[in-house]
Structure formats: structure tokens, C-alpha cells
């Protein structure tokens, strides 16, 4: 497979990652969110494996496998089990309406494109143009956390940010050293367990997962 075709497939997968990020931004149903997150993880792991193949970096295969097992299988499964156990309502409300959110998402994409311009000029990798997409995914994850009122969507936004960061690592530098990748994966796993526990606590105490309920700590009342 020549380099040009690989670069094309890489761009295509990057576009798909961006598409899933936007789809998560506008999605109203929680099950749909989880599925989209799984798809995003799948695209990422395929991309990582492909880059590992092309650049002969075998530690990327391990990263790819980690992403696959963690973000495509384990985390969506945990989330799904949580939703079923806690009988969470399946729809999410948003703070602002969806077209406005999409517009802000587009602005963030343009912004990240400009922000990563210096890196793009200096890089010699075939994946350099996808760094903008990675940063955009991080920012869209952030936007998702801000504009949704539900604890589950905040967590998924957080995980989408991690996805974006992982993607940034592969596109700027062909992946961080393995020890760092493993550590980050460990952190994500621990975070997953923690938020699982959290949901139970929140649900028991507040009887809902609407984060608007958690607004009691204010100044000097």
C-alpha cells in the first residue's frame, strides 16, 4: 500500500472521528451517545493500527488493542449497565438549542485549525494534518460537557476529550512512548470505575442524574 493511499485512509478516518464528535454533540438519546462513542473508539483504534503498520512502530499495535478493549468494549458496556441499573431517563436536555451548538462546534474546528498551524508546518509525518481534528475533538468534548445537563453526558464528553488527546498523540508524534500510553489507559480505567461509583452515589442521594440539582454549594449563603 503506498503512502498516498494510507494518508487518504488516515484523513478519511479522521473525518469520521470528527463526524462522530459532532453527532455526539447533537444527539439527544443516551443510548445513541454510547454507540457513537464506541464507533469513535473503533475508528481511532483502526487508525492507530494502520499508522503502526506504516511507520513500523509496534507499540502502536498495543495502544490500538488497548483502545479497542477499553473504549469500544469495556466503557460502553459499563455505561450501558449503569443506565439499565439506575433506570436513567433516556433523553438529555440541552442548555442551548442544537443548531447554535453545532455552529459553535464549527467555530471551534476553525479555531483549532489555526491554533495548530505552527505544529503542522514543522511536522514531517503523514498524519500532521489530523492534529487539528484531534484538538477539535477535544474542544467539542469540552463543549458537550458544558452544554448538557446530565451526568452521563458529562462523562461521555470527558471520555471524548480523552479520545481526542489520544488521537493528538498519534497524529503529532506517532504515539507517545508505551509507558505513557499504558499509564494513561490505566488512568482512564480508574476514572471509569470512579464515575461508576459516583453515579450510584449521586442517584442514591439526589434521585436523579440531572446536574442542575447539584448547585447548592454557593458563596456565603
Amino acid at each position: 500500500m503506498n503512502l498516498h493511499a494510507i494518508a487518504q485512509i488516515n484523513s478519511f478516518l479522521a473525518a469520521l472521528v470528527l463526524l462522530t464528535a459532532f453527532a455526539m454533540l447533537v444527539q439527544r438519546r443516551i443510548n445513541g451517545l454510547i454507540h457513537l462513542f464506541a464507533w469513535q473508539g473503533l475508528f481511532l483504534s483502526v487508525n492507530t493500527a494502520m499508522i503502526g503498520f506504516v511507520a513500523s512502530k509496534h507499540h502502536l499495535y498495543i495502544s490500538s488493542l488497548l483502545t479497542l478493549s477499553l473504549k469500544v468494549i469495556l466503557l460502553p458496556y459499563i455505561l450501558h449497565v449503569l443506565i439499565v441499573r439506575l433506570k436513567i431517563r433516556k433523553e438529555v436536555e440541552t442548555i442551548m438549542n442544537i443548531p447554535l451548538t453545532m455552529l459553535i462546534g464549527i467555530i471551534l474546528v476553525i479555531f483549532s485549525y489555526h491554533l495548530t498551524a505552527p505544529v503542522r508546518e514543522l511536522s514531517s509525518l503523514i498524519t500532521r494534518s489530523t492534529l487539528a481534528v484531534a484538538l477539535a475533538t477535544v474542544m467539542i468534548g469540552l463543549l458537550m460537557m458544558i452544554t448538557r445537563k446530565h451526568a452521563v453526558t458529562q462523562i461521555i464528553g470527558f471520555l471524548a476529550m480523552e479520545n481526542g488527546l489520544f488521537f493528538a498523540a498519534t497524529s503529532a508524534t506517532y504515539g507517545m512512548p508505551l509507558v505513557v500510553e499504558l499509564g494513561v489507559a490505566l488512568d482512564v480505567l480508574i476514572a471509569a470505575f470512579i464515575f461508576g461509583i459516583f453515579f450510584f452515589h449521586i442517584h442514591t442521594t439526589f434521585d436523579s442524574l440531572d446536574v442542575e440539582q447539584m448547585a447548592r454549594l454557593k458563596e456565603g449563603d
Partner: protein
Amino acid sequence: MILLILLGVPLFAAALLAFVGDRRLAPEINILGSAATFIAGIGLALQVYEKGPMTAGGEFFFVDAFNVYLAVLTSFVSMTTAIFSRRYMRREREHGRVGHVGMRFYHAMYQLFIFAMLLCLLTNNIGVLWIAMELATLSTVLLVSLYRTPTAIEAAWKYFILCGVGIAQALFGTVLLYFAAEKVLGEGGEALLWTNLSRVSDKLEPTVLSLAFVFLMVGYGTKVGLVPLHNWLPDAHSEGPTPISAVLSGLLLNIALYALVRCKVLVDGSTHTHYAGNIMMGFGLLSILVAAFSLLRQKDIKRMFSYSSIEHMGIATFAFGLGGPIATFGALLHMLVHSLAKSAIFFTVGHASQMHRTQEMDMIKGLFKGNPLVGWGMMFGVMAIVGMPPFGIFTSEFLILTATIKDAPLMTPFLLLGLGVAFAALFRKVQPMVAGEAPPHQRYLKVAHVPVLLHMTLVLVIGLYLPDFLNRWFHTAVELLK
């Protein structure tokens, strides 16, 4: 060798305490583990003192004057906090605020937290630094919500989310740093080692490093509690058990600042301008002013002292940003004495709130009469923290002010304003608490007097006479941070 002991003991203690659970000896094991860590820390410090900076574990660990001093401080404060926690948490257990599982979890996570902090300090690999920082955050998240009240859960959730977001930005900054480093050092783990990076820092691309520093500032700055990224701090530090508030305020903030300063050194070496320093000064000054003015409005005692932590971290950040030997010396000294004084304050605050069964300052009164140790401890603690002589904080703040007048004179009025407002606010709030008659609902408790006395004595001694070894220690660190 020593490093292995230093890191291995907390890890082993965590596992052991997870098994021991809520039995009688758990707090004692906690104290012993922390004491062993402290002794190992002193051993390491002596080694570095004699021989200078050293690497270990095949360049995985790096110990120089800057981080070994923080390591010793961390292990010391965690030891004294463990002593305090024994009496305090027993009382909390009796009041029924924590259960069996909670105590088991508390002890195990306490040691894991210490392990994470020490790993963060001693590693040479910037990626592992990030991982350890995240681990430290994660191990304390569930501790903040230990009491399971609505406010505690809310505080823990905010802590989790906001710090998680912040630290994700820091990861992006680390990736960019690795990208710049790869060009010069080649691929693989060597490009993330701080020793290598500081050696080649002038060959790293300035544009990429500037961009990376912005992300690192936002990321690690969130963990330091700099305004405007500080929203999680007052909640998290006020809702958890008091020993946790003490270690979070006293230790974790220092470590986040350490990470930030390490990155700043690299960026300075690359850009050769005052870019990073200016950013740090801006954030630091903003934190000082906002925190000082927020102190006036507080009603909850732990919240008030958390804002005080924000202010002091702002001072330290400002000083590190200013740069130069005097300011850096002042900042290092400030990190030390603030840690000691703030944890001492939290010890007394914990006992005061236990005596009155509340954290509202309006309900706490008459501490001098009710329990002189707690009352006078709090009074001296506050005097120390607002920077009154002869306590150590006066020394460090004086040094920082001197450096400011010399290098950035226009900032001096703001700095003075912040310090002054904090002084007034804290005294205004603490005075009614310690003076006057003891209210009827106050109960007498046996307090853990050793930690408070120890810390305050140290702060006083450092203020009056800076020991020679400490002086030389700091000077070496200042040299390294040029």
C-alpha cells in the same frame, strides 16, 4: 535502594490497609507507614545533599534539590496528618459520619495518594508526571465525597470534572512538548526525560513550546487552583474529611506548582523571553486579588481557609513567574511554610468544627476558653498565614515583595492590596471564633496536640532563624531553576 523504599512503603501500606480495614490498628499502621516514608525521604535528601542531583532506575527517576525538598515536606506533613487523623477520624467514626467500608477506603486511599504524590515528584519522565498527577487526583476524588451528603457529592463531582478537564489540557500540552522534543532528541522514551529536555531546551522550537505552555498552564494551573480555574477548590477542600483537606491544601497544590515550574524552565530555555513568566505572574496576581476579596464573604470556616490556600498559591506562582534569585528563593520558602502553617490551621479547624458539630463560623465561639490548645493554635496559625513576623511566611512574603519592587514595581500595589485585604479578612473572621464565651453547644475533646505544636514550632523557627542546611538547599534549588 532508598528510592524503592520511599515509593514502595506507601504502596505496600495502601495494600495492607485495604486488607486491615477498619480494625483497631489501622490508624497506627497508617502512621507507621508515613513515618517510614518520612525517614526514607530524609535518607534520600541526605544523599542528594552530599552528592548533588542523581538519576536512578535507568534515568526513570531524577532527584535534585528542588524535588527532594518537596518530597521530604510531603512525607513529613503526611506523617503528622496521619497522627492527627487518628484522633480525628475516630471521633468521626463515633459520630457516625463514616462507616466501616468508608474507613477502610480512607486509609488505603490515603497511602495511595502519598505514593502518587511522591511518584509525581521523583519521576524524570514528563508523561509519568502527568499520570501520577491524575492518579493523585483520582485517589482523592472519592475521599472528598466520603460523608455522602449532597454537598459532599456535588463537591467531589465538580472536583472530578473540572480537574479532569484541566488535566486533559495538560496532556495535550505534554503531547506538544513531546512533539518538539522528538525533533531534537529522536523518538522513544528519552524525549520525555526532563534531564534530556533541559539539556537541549534551547534547540526546541519556541512556537511549539509557547503553545504547549499555554495548555500546560491551563492544565496544571487548574490543579494549583489559580483563578479563573479555581471553582472546584473551595468546595473540594471544605467538604472532605479534615485530614484530606489538610493534605490537599498543603501538599497537592505544591506538587501541581512543581510540575508547572519544571515546564516553565523548559519553555524559558527555549524562548529566551519572559513569556512564560509573564503568564504565571498574571495568573498569580489575579488569584491573589480574587481570593483575598472572596475571603470577606465566607461563612464556612474550611471554605475560607481554602480561599486562603488559593491566595498563597497565587503568591508562589507570581514569585516563580517573576524569576530571579530572590523571588525564587522566596517562592520555595513560601511553599514550605505555607504547607506547614496551612495544615496546622486545618488541624485546629478540624477539632474546632468537631467541638461545635458544625463548620459555620457564626456557630463557633470561645475557643480560648473552651479548649486553649485549639484556640491558641488557630490564632497563631492565622497570624502565621497572614504573614505576621516572626513567623516564616513573613520572611517569604518580604522576599517576594522586595523582588517585586525591584523587577516589577508596578505590580507592588496590587500585591500589597491582596495581602492587606487577606490579613484584614482573616483576622476579622477568626477573632470572634477564638475570643468570648464558650457557647453551650460546645463540647470538650481530647485533641491531637503533637501535629499542631510541631508545625507551628517549625514555622516559628524558620521565621526566626533559617537553618543553614535549608538555606543552602534553597540556594541549590534556585540555581537549578535559572
